[in-house]
């Protein structure tokens, strides 16, 4: 009767629509195949299947990398490396239908490594300043000035956080994943993911200055 919660499953969210919003992801002769089928074909060195997987999830991976970083710098490298790594380690994927989440976790790891590498360089004095937030890489041209101000402030604050906390918060509140998905993508337990989000949230709440309050009398 006691539900077993040791193994958490990735729950699809509204963010899942990201891939399907790109028409080109649905093109090609293999586009009708499921992820599991494409993974199986890719394991047999079917390049077409891999390309279909790539085109289905490249927009998701690109957006994930850019939003986690707060800039578009190197996102193409990250996504390139993520897909190369995914293909090289496809045998490690135990549940082929969970390719998207698995790919996401690879992107998260690569972004985290990059953040840590840059921090180490800063620590060693080899990089004078932190990587600035590129607002245009984060905010859509359709965003109004208030929304842009909010995003600028949030990302500036996120930059001061530990990579793990920053990633967890971004996955939850920017990428809009559920807690279980954040844990899965971050490669940590649900409790750890929650603590990281709470820590980041606490910090943001402490230091965030609402643009709305600024303008109000």
């Amino acid at each position, binding site marked *: *009767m*006691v*539900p077993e919660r040791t193994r958490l499953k990735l729950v699809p969210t*509204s*963010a899942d629509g*990201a891939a399907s919003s790109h028409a*080109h992801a649905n093109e090609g002769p293999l586009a009708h195949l499921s992820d599991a089928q494409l993974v199986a074909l890719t394991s047999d060195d079917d390049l077409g299947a891999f*390309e279909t997987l*790539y*085109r289905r999830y*490249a*927009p*998701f991976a*690109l*957006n994930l*990398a850019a939003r986690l970083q707060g800039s578009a710098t190197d*996102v193409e490298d990250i996504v390139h490396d993520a*897909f*190369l790594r995914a293909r*090289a380690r496809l045998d490690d994927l135990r549940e082929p239908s969970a390719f998207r989440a698995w790919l996401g976790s690879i992107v998260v790891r690569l972004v985290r490594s990059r953040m840590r590498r840059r*921090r180490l360089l800063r*620590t*060693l004095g080899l990089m004078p300043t*932190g990587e600035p937030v590129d607002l245009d*890489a984060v*905010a859509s041209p*359709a*965003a109004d000035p208030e*929304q842009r101000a*909010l995003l*600028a*402030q*949030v990302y*500036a*604050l996120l*930059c*001061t956080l*530990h*990579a793990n906390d920053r990633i967890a918060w971004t996955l939850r*509140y*920017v990428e*809009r994943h559920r807690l279980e998905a954040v844990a899965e993508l971050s490669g940590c*337990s649900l*409790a*750890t993911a*929650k*603590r990281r989000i*709470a*820590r*980041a*949230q*606490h*910090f*943001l*709440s*402490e*230091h965030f*200055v*609402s643009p709305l*309050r600024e303008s109000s009398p």
Partner: protein
Amino acid sequence: MSDRRSFSEIPAEVLEDHGDHERVDRVWKRLHANLEGGHARRRSPIAPWLVVSAATFALGIFVGAKWLGGAAPGPVATVSAEPRVTAKTPAAPAAKPTAEAEAALHEAPRAHQSHRVAAPRRADDVVAESPALPLPSAQAAPLEWQRLADEGQYVQALASLEATGGFDAALREANAEELMSLVDVARATGQRDRAIVALRRIVSEHGSDPNAPVAAWMLGNELAKTGALAEAEQAFAMYRALSPSGDFAEDALARQVDMAAEQGNLDHARKLAGQYLKEFPDGPRSADMQVEIEQWSRSPGPSSSAAEPEVRPSEAPSAAPAPEPSAAPPLY
């Protein structure tokens, strides 16, 4: 939760879309070239050399640090990462005494409006200042086991703990945050008893810490696995007391029902199930609860408690422990 009110999810439409056709094609061309070159399914032969280089570098750093006699701060000490580092901001000056900074960090979340008292700062300022922020003395470099635990290397973290005084010694001196890391280490290395001890300490000694609710939740889960159902139920009740509208509030009440039913305390289970239906009429377990209430009503349980207390989350988390409807021994 105040969290949700102060920062709701950022709408997708205000975020830039990086998945444009040109970029996707550009990356694919590179990928394709690499795959054609046969790099895809082959481990890089340079990897072992990188590992050796990294190890040599790390050894050099270690020897250097030893040689300098610890005069120079370790690399981690200069990293401005954790929230408490930002004590430099007007809301929390860097000169604040260490204990005060610690208390501020561990303070339970307040109403979000009161958090917005910091003077307006330009986003650029925050970024520009971040690398140079000084660390308060309490923000010393994290211990090796903590660093390893934070990276998910729990076995190594345990080894590091054992090499530096042992798990139990760390447990005695840990603050709430460190206790949570110890819990992670203990759970990941199969030491449930130790995890339970650490979780109990968080709940009982750090009730106002932001970690306390999730600790109570985890404690309930761990106790349930050991078969200590009465105590598990108390822990789930404690979660609800600490975080009445928390992410796991619905789950916690459902687990209370489960625990009570498994103990055969059907009156109590029925009461809790009724409360579940009242609080979460659309909850994922509501249909089950309805059925179970009917079943339990037909079959009188072995125990009955006419004077059972109303099972409500208490309003003062740290001061009032969760309601203890069953005859279990005190949890804390």
